[in-house]
């Protein structure tokens, strides 16, 4: 019997990966941001999940506008990163998973979700930065990863309520799987930020705290928003809240918030970390 042990939220911006590569974790700019992670790493090292389902958005590496899935799920044995346009460094391959992945695909279709299924996909910083944050030194190959990509780039995007429902359906799929594995959910990206336009640099700290306050006890307070609401309240890229909601939807049990941190700005964003145990 598999078990969903909990969920983690984290920023995934490229600058974090660069800071880790350069060993800048203790520099004044980064110190407080990175201080949020040791308790999360300790929990992961104690709980030893076998599988991580990582909700992220592709930023134009695997998916261009020619064929951009609304929801995509990987079923590959292995995943690789690649150059995203600024000479990003190659990192060790990410271990995939095929049994639960296909079970989730089957279960989602039965549940009236129709994702794009990828037996090969390059994964970008949206997925790799969180993994490197959780397992410094790229020491992540022991955990099997199932990537779930949500379109956060071109409107129309899935409604926040739909991303939450996708997470719920994935939670049901994991619980109905016969494999005897521990599964953790990662909700990556966010919180408020805007990269584009004359409003570039918009951050809404109050809203970010509100999201973190509501996510565990009252996710409906967040799923009520449209993407148009999020765009205004949280900035153009604030729609990345979708991945937090999918992660939250995939936690079906009694939830306990074990750890929380918020630090802004990191690059252009409000960076929120939450560790949620699912019993």
């Amino acid at each position, binding site marked *: 019997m598999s078990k969903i042990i909990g969920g983690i939220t984290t920023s995934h911006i490229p600058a974090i990966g660069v800071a880790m590569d350069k060993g800048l974790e203790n520099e004044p700019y980064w110190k407080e941001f990175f201080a949020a992670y040791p308790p999360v790493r300790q929990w992961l090292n104690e709980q030893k999940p076998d599988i991580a389902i990582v909700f992220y958005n592709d930023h134009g590496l695997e998916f*261009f506008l020619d064929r951009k899935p609304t929801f995509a799920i990987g079923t590959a044995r292995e995943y690789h990163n690649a150059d995203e*346009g600024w000479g990003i460094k190659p990192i060790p391959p990410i271990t995939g998973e095929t049994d639960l992945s296909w079970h989730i695909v089957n279960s989602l279709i039965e549940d009236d979700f129709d994702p794009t299924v990828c037996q090969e996909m390059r994964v970008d910083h949206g997925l790799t930065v969180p993994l490197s944050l959780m397992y410094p030194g790229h020491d992540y190959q022991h955990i099997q990863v199932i990537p779930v990509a949500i379109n956060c780039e*071109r409107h129309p995007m899935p409604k926040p309520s739909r991303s939450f429902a996708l997470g719920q359906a994935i939670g049901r799929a994991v619980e109905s799987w016969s494999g005897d594995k521990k599964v953790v959910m990662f909700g990556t990206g966010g919180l408020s930020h805007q990269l584009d336009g004359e409003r570039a640099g918009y951050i809404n700290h109050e809203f970010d705290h509100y999201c973190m306050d509501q996510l565990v006890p009252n996710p409906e307070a967040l799923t009520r928003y449209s993407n148009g609401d999020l765009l205004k309240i949280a900035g153009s890229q604030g729609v990345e809240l979708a991945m937090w909601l999918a992660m939250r939807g995939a936690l079906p049990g009694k939830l306990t918030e074990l750890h929380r941190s918020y630090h*802004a700005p990191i690059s252009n964003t409000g960076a929120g970390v939450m560790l949620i145990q699912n019993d």
Partner: protein
Amino acid sequence: MSIPHSPPGTQVFDGPMATQGYALNKLCYSFNEAAAREAFQADESAYCDRFGLSAEQKEALLKRDVLKLQALGGSIYYLAKFAGVLGLGVQDVGGLQTGMSTDEFKAMLVDGGNRRFGEYDYE
């Protein structure tokens, strides 16, 4: 309606914008390959012609007019790759779009972020 209206200071990247900007975004997407970055830098104008940019898009690209490129259908995710070719980071691009130096833009972020168009209440 699921397609949001653009709030002030923001160009929502939706279907019509994606149609208008397809060639431009495809050009920027090509920069995932190092060889493409080199080819662009060797002859920017010829590279634009190869992708079939409109005259307006080409002019904006050659001038590094990031706001204009967005108005002509450029997505910030692909324009970020263009910025990478130029050696610019997101804060440099933020400065270009807001008429600030990079340091001024960074200071604004530390100071609570861009409030030029107000702040939207979450209730």
